[in-house]
Structures are given as C-alpha cells and as structure tokens.
C-alpha cells in the first residue's frame, strides 16, 4: 500500500510491503488509484530502493529490547518506486493506501511501454525472469537510432552485450515482420584479442552455464527460451583480418588462434591514392594548421597521380630512387623508363623526394607550395612512423585480379555479419582501417540510400572520437551519429567512460546501456539519465547485468542476459574437427 508518511508524487512514491510479501530492487509494480469522479489512473514503475526498519521505537539501541522480546515493535518494510508510466496521462499523485501489485503479464507490458512499440526485440531479462522489450524503431533509425554502452573493461562486458543485442535483432524475428531479414547486416570491429573470431562457432560452455543459472534463479525454462532466442552462434559470418607483414604473393591473415575461414584484406596503392585515404593515416592531422594543409595538398596530388589507370601500383616518371639506400626494396622500372611504386615504403620515399630532395633539397614547388621545411619533415616523419603497420595493408605488388579478390567487401552477398579484426594493428593503423572502412560504408549508403540497415559495432569509442580535438575518423563517426540513422547506419558504440567521448556521439544514441561504472565516473553529467540510486548501483553491477535506458521508458531498467551461445575463445569452441582442418588447407592454398 502506498505510504502516507512519505510524499507520494506522480513520479515517485513509497509503499509499504505487507508481511509475507517480498519486493526487491528492480521489481516492476503497478498501482491503481481513483480520481474523485471514479475514473481510474494506473501508475507503473520500477522499485529503486527498499528498506526495513523497526517502527514505533525511538532509539537505535531499542533493537536489543525488541530482539529480547521486551519491546513490541513491528518491522516496517517499504520500497520506493520511480514511476515509468502513468496511464492515462493524468499526473495526479497516487493516494496513500492505494494497493501496489507486482506488474505481470499485461501490466508488465504497460509498465515497459511495450504496447507503444510496434516492433520490439528482447533486450534481456528482468530480475524476475520476465523479458524486457526494446523498441526496434528506436534502433533502426525510424524514430531514433544508435546504441551506446559504457562500463569498465572486463567487468562490464560491453562487447558481449552488444553482440547479444545483435543476436536478438537478427534472430528474434523482429526483422522478418518487415521483410528486412536478409538485408540487415552488421560490421563488427574486433579491437581486443581474438575474442570475436569464433562468432560462428557454438560455445560448449553455454549449456552447463545456462542450466546453472536457471537452477540458481529458479526459472521455469532456460534464459534463451524465455527470450525466444535460439542458443546458436551467428550465421553467415565473414572474418576479415589484415595480412601478415612481408611481400610475396601469399597473403595470410595475421591471426593466431583461428586457422581457417579468415579472409585477409588489402588496399591497393592506387586505391589508397584514388580514394584519398591519406588523411586517415594522420588521426591528429588537424592538430596543426600547416600540417593539415600539407596533407590536403598531397592527398590531392596523389589522387591526380593515380587517376586514369587501374593497375594496383602507381607509375611516376620523375623519380629515380637512390637504389643504394633502398636496397632492401624491390624497385622496378617498366618499359617506358617510368618508375613503378609498388610498396607503401616506396610511396613514402617518393613523397620524401618530391617534398625534400628534388631541386637540391628545395622540393617540387608544386608539391611543396611554399610550406616550411619543418612541416614537410614532420609530415614525412609521421608517414615513416606508420609505415611498418600500413605496408602489409596497402600494397601495389599484386595483380589486379588478386587486389580485387582481397578488397574488403563489407556488403558481400550472403554475409550477414562481418568481423574486421584490427587488434594486432598499431593505434594509427587501427584508426586508419576503421576510418577508411566506415567512410566507404558511409559513402556507399549515401549513394544507395537506406535500403538496408547496417549495424556497426565499435568498442573504445573514446579512442576514435575523443571529446577533445578533431580527426578525420571522428568526422566520419560524427557523420554516422548525426546522419547515419537516416541512411541506415546504426552505431553500436561502447567505451569505458562516456565522459571522454565526443558528446554529440553519445547524445545521439537512443538506447543507452551502462554496465559496471567507476563511481566517480558515474557522477559525471553524461550519466544524468540514470536516477541517483542507479548511479550508486552502477558501481556494484555484476558481469552479465546491465542498466538499459530507452526512450519509451523514462527510467532505466536492470537486465541480465544469457551467456553467449557463440564461442569467445578457441577453447570454448565445441570440437568439430575435420571441417576446420580442411578449411585451413584450402586457405593456405589460396583456394
């Protein structure tokens, strides 16, 4: 019953729990109150605070007398409710004495505004084993888009939850209702370990873990059954990884744990120039105005140089590399006396020549454009710095056919999920790959419109779109955050600390998820969407538990989600030898 000793308001009230009943935090409740004209008003809310105390005693030490059986006292058990919905929207307060009930069935649907959702998918399980529906229209861009997940690494399991959401979107049937199933895709960047390279493999631990949880929580059926999701791994997955360093025709993906099924990807040198990828080599390129100018100028020059041909390499007439200093490099000249630029290192050497060496150290005036030597040197120095990481990725020594074969195709027919493994690359090369691929995706969608939704899963947003400073990749991410939803690109971003990510990216996310947070972090303004009691709790959340906030429900809801049905390590893969070995062989043979 609603308490009369505490204020009851339309947004929050306390209620007393009758003896024998039990209410915990996160339980959803419903209250019916009556207006003077007899019409009912229903309040639905979530319990965010529970407490017990001795009633009718004055002193703290009275508890001893009560326990000794001398002092009569009753235990008052009360809970506070944050209202999530008032129906109809008459914001009168509930009356003290109104009966509070657990929200179940239809009440629960109303409490979570499920009736307002035309299409929804399961976003996890509430504490009592009921399903939290998430409004798909706030995910796919119809009314809102983007998902943002915050939490401490390791304990917050951000990536797991992002993958769970993808699994729920793909497999809950929400897509089929609009005939989208075959066109919706996901692009996942794997930034840590080789965790995500086994998404298509069943996890052999899922059954024992889920059975244990089911027993511990006293659920009637397994969590996957409750959610209406199959406990199966991802389907139609392609894995992309950068190749191992080293020249030669054999291109091998640079991964260790997984032996087969990973496709290496490279960009040809000509693509690099034609498609103006140079700025993405400099994540902090706009830090100095002069450097930005040089980058823009060279980008333009390279694009012109690469125009009009489609061989993977570039040819230049005005450069005779000093072969002695480049002994290790395999410089080739073609019939016309032109020099072929076949490797990334040669491209840098060429740029160095054009900027610093030609004309006795003056450089080619058209390339230099009167820029200070120091700036030019800085430019070359930075290129050299990333050479090691980018050389395997950007190459011109392949045949055109092979270059086309290894070009990353994120929207390949028959592929639903693409995992791009960049965890082995250096920070600059990671940004380069993410930036280039996202821009390509964005430009593709700009051309063809939102025929299908692409979900982009990117961890460590704070690295790619930091709050301070500008970078080309941040521009791409901002574009996605601000315009992507109308183009059908949905960013599922995650980061440890939302306070360090560009505000516009976080604030554009319709659905926000918080796992375990550092308590100091939880008090930052980025987390004001959490009520105070939830902020305090964010510090003690267990792995597998998330606070989910969506636009339809004014208060966040605590959910848990099942153990992944896909393997997240090689030793979790349910053994199915034979096929894998065969795949590995084919891979080596380039078949």
């Amino acid at each position, binding site marked *: 019953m609603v308490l009369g000793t505490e204020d009851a308001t339309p947004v929050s009230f306390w209620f007393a729990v009758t003896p024998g009943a039990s209410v915990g935090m996160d339980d959803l409740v419903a209250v019916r109150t009556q207006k003077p004209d007899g019409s009912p008003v229903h309040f639905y809310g979530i319990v965010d605070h529970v407490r017990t105390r001795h009633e009718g005693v004055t*002193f703290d030490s009275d508890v001893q007398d009560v326990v000794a*059986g001398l*002092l*009569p*006292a009753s235990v008052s058990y009360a809970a506070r409710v944050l209202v999530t919905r008032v129906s109809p929207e008459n914001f009168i307060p509930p009356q*003290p004495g109104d009966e509070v009930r657990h929200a179940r069935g239809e009440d629960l649907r109303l409490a979570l505004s499920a009736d307002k959702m035309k299409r929804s998918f399961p976003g996890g399980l509430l504490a009592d084993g009921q399903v939290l529906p998430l409004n798909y229209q706030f995910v796919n861009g119809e009314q809102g888009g983007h998902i943002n997940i915050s939490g401490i690494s390791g304990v917050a399991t951000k990536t797991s939850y992002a993958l769970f959401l993808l699994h729920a979107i793909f497999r809950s049937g929400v897509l089929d209702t609009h005939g989208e199933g075959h066109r919706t895709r996901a692009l996942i960047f794997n930034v840590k370990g080789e965790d995500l390279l086994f998404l298509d493999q069943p996890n052999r631990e899922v059954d024992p873990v889920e059975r244990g949880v089911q027993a511990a929580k006293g659920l009637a059926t397994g969590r996957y059954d409750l959610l209406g999701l199959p406990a199966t791994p991802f389907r139609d997955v392609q894995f992309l990884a950068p190749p191992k360093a080293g020249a030669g025709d054999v291109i091998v993906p640079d991964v260790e744990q997984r032996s087969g099924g990973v496709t290496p990807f490279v960009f040809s040198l000509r693509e690099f120039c034609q498609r103006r990828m140079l700025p993405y080599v400099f994540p902090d390129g706009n830090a100095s105005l002069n450097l930005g100018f040089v980058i823009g100028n060279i980008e333009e020059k390279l694009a012109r140089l690469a125009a009009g041909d489609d061989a993977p390499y570039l040819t230049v007439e005005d450069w005779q590399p000093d072969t002695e200093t480049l002994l290790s490099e395999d410089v080739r000249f073609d019939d016309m006396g032109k020099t072929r630029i076949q490797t990334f290192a040669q491209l840098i050497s060429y740029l160095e020549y054009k900027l610093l060496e030609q004309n006795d150290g003056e450089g080619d005036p058209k390339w230099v454009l009167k820029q200070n030597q120091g700036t030019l040197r800085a430019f070359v120095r930075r290129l050299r710095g990333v050479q090691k990481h980018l050389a395997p990725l950007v190459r011109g020594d392949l045949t055109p056919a092979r270059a086309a074969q290894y070009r990353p195709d994120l929207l390949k027919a028959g592929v639903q999920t693409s995992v791009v493994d960049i965890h082995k690359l250096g920070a600059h090369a990671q940004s380069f790959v993410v930036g280039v691929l996202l821009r390509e995706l964005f430009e593709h969608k700009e051309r063809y419109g939102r025929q299908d939704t692409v979900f982009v899963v990117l961890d460590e947003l704070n690295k790619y779109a930091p709050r301070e400073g500008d970078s080309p990749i941040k521009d791409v991410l901002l574009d996605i955050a601000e315009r992507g939803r109308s183009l059908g690109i949905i960013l599922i971003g995650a980061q440890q600390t939302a306070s360090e990510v560009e505000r516009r990216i976080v604030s554009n996310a319709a659905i926000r998820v918080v796992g375990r947070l550092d308590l100091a972090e939880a008090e930052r303004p980025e987390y004001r969407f959490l009520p105070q009691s939830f902020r305090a709790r964010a510090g003690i959340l267990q792995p597998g538990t998330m606070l989910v906030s969506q636009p339809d429900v004014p208060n966040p809801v605590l959910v848990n989600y099942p153990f992944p049905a896909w393997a997240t390590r090689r030793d979790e893969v349910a053994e199915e030898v034979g096929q894998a070995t065969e795949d590995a062989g084919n891979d080596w043979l380039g078949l």
Partner: protein
Amino acid sequence: MRIRLDPWPVDMEGGQLGLKRFEGELIDIETPRWAAVAPRPIPARLGTVYVVDGKRRMESRVFIEDGDGAAGMGGFGAYVVGAVELCPHGTRPATLREVRAQRLLAHAPGLRVDPCLLSPRDPHTGRLQYAPVVADSAEPLAPLHKLQQVMLAAEQELSHGLASRVPFDEEDDREALTALTIQDGTLRSQNLGGAVVGCVKTMQTQYLPPDRAGLLTDLKPGERTPILHMRYENNRITRFIWYVRLCEAAFYQHPMSGVMRLEMYAPEEPDFLPPIVRTVANVSGPLLCRLASQPYKDPRAPQNLIPTAALEHAMTRAMGSADLVTRRLRAHIARELGVAS
C-alpha cells in the same frame, strides 16, 4: 545536613518520592523475619507476561440539546486499553494486544442522545464512532469521570481476562502460574480473580514503619521485601504488598530511588497467602529488572517499564491526532447544522 535528589525530573508532578505516613494496618503474612528475600529464577511454566495499561483523552466538551428540549453537558472522549504480550524467557518477539481506541459521548443524565458517526472526507482515513454513555451527574467534570471509569473497567477486565486464576482458599493450590499480568499503577476496584500485579511507580505513602523502612535502602537490585497484608484505615480495601529494587541508586539520588511497590489483591481475612502470590513475588525481582528502562531512554526509568512505554506510545497513536479529531468533530457539526465547512 544531607541533600539528595528525587530520581524523577521536576516536571513530573509529585516526583517519585512523597513519603507520607501510612495510618492503616500491616500484617506480616509471609514471614515475621524482616529481611531481604533473594530473587528466584523465573519458572519455565510461566510462559506469558502481559503488561497492561490504559489511556484516555477528552476530545471535546459539548453542550447537547435533544429533540425533547432537554439540554446538558457532555463530552466526546476516547480511551484505549491494551497489553503487551511477551515471553519472560525472551523466546518470542513482544507483541501488542488489543490496542484499539474506543470512543464515547458521555452526557448528563436525562438526555436522549443518538450514536455519533463521523464519516471522513477521504475514505482511506476511517470513521469515528461515538457511543452515547450516561454520566453519573450533571456536573461539568462528570463526563470526564465517566470516561475514566469506563477505561478503568476495561483495563481491569483485560488484565484479569489474560492472567491465570488465583485461588483464594486453602483447598485449591494446584493451579500453576502460567500467565501473569503486570498492570501499570495501583490496583482498582474489586478483585476479579486473575494473577494481576500492580506496579506503583511512585512512593507517595510510606507504608512501612520507620524501623522497617531501612530495608528499602539496603535492597540489592532484584531483591524484595517479605510480603505484607495491608488494610487501609478508612475503608475495607485489602492488598498484599511488597517492595522490589530495580536498580542501584546513584550517589546523588535518594537511596530509595529505583524501589517499586507491588501489590496484588488479597482476601479480607489475613490468614492465607495464596501460593501464586508468593510465586509472583519471587519472580517479580528478576522479571522487573529485565523489563526496567534506562534513564537515557525514559525520564521515569527504571520504574516506567520498557513495554509500558511502548504501550503508551501505541495507545496515543491509536487514539489518533487530537487536532485531526477536533477538526473532524467540527466538520461533522457543520454538516449536521447545514453550514458549509
């Protein structure tokens, strides 16, 4: 000259110690040997102890004019009697019993008065029902006295209804003490036969002659005096009485502080001490020491027992806020008279 403090705060009327001389008759019924009796452990068969108290409040004085043209004084009053049920061995939580407010409209004799039912504006807050009761006279204070009488009768009935029977003749001594009622204050009116012990918190009258009063000072906590049979000088009321010390007196207090007088109903003829009375006297020390309050919690400690304080609190609450009741009465009268409130 020696000055020591009365244990109770000055705003308590009369203080704890008055020490007037008693003029009645006292008879040694337990033993002629005047010495402290050591406490005995509480017997296992005594399973329940009830602490009973009552409280009353006059809520409004009224003038009544009935349909026949008669008029007189009256009053809206409320009273509560209630009990705390507890286990002297501490095996159960203490609970409140029967703490319910009763309301009555006491009025001068000769008036025709209907029951009063006050319906609230908000259905959650309950109705107040005043039953008409005729007072003894038309005096202005008669309704208050009537209220007091009704309350005491209810208290008496509750006390005796809860307790074990006390046999008052020599043939019947088998009945055991299983339930004991501790009633706050002195015993009233006639004996209804239950094992009821009255706890008198103050010592306004010094019953003991000066040569015996010294023992009160020397009692150790939990010890008691022998039981005496007492008869008032001017009427026929008889009681068994004894004294118990609940706590050590502080050096600055009167040495009789912490001493409490207990009484039980006694037959008029001082020739028989029922065994239950002796049992009650034996357990009274340890029991009351256990129930005694602490000075930082209660200004009347240790005499105001922990359950009594809790009961008083609950009874006050059961009667409701006096302000709200007065307002309800006013609104009720406004409605009766057809005035917009």
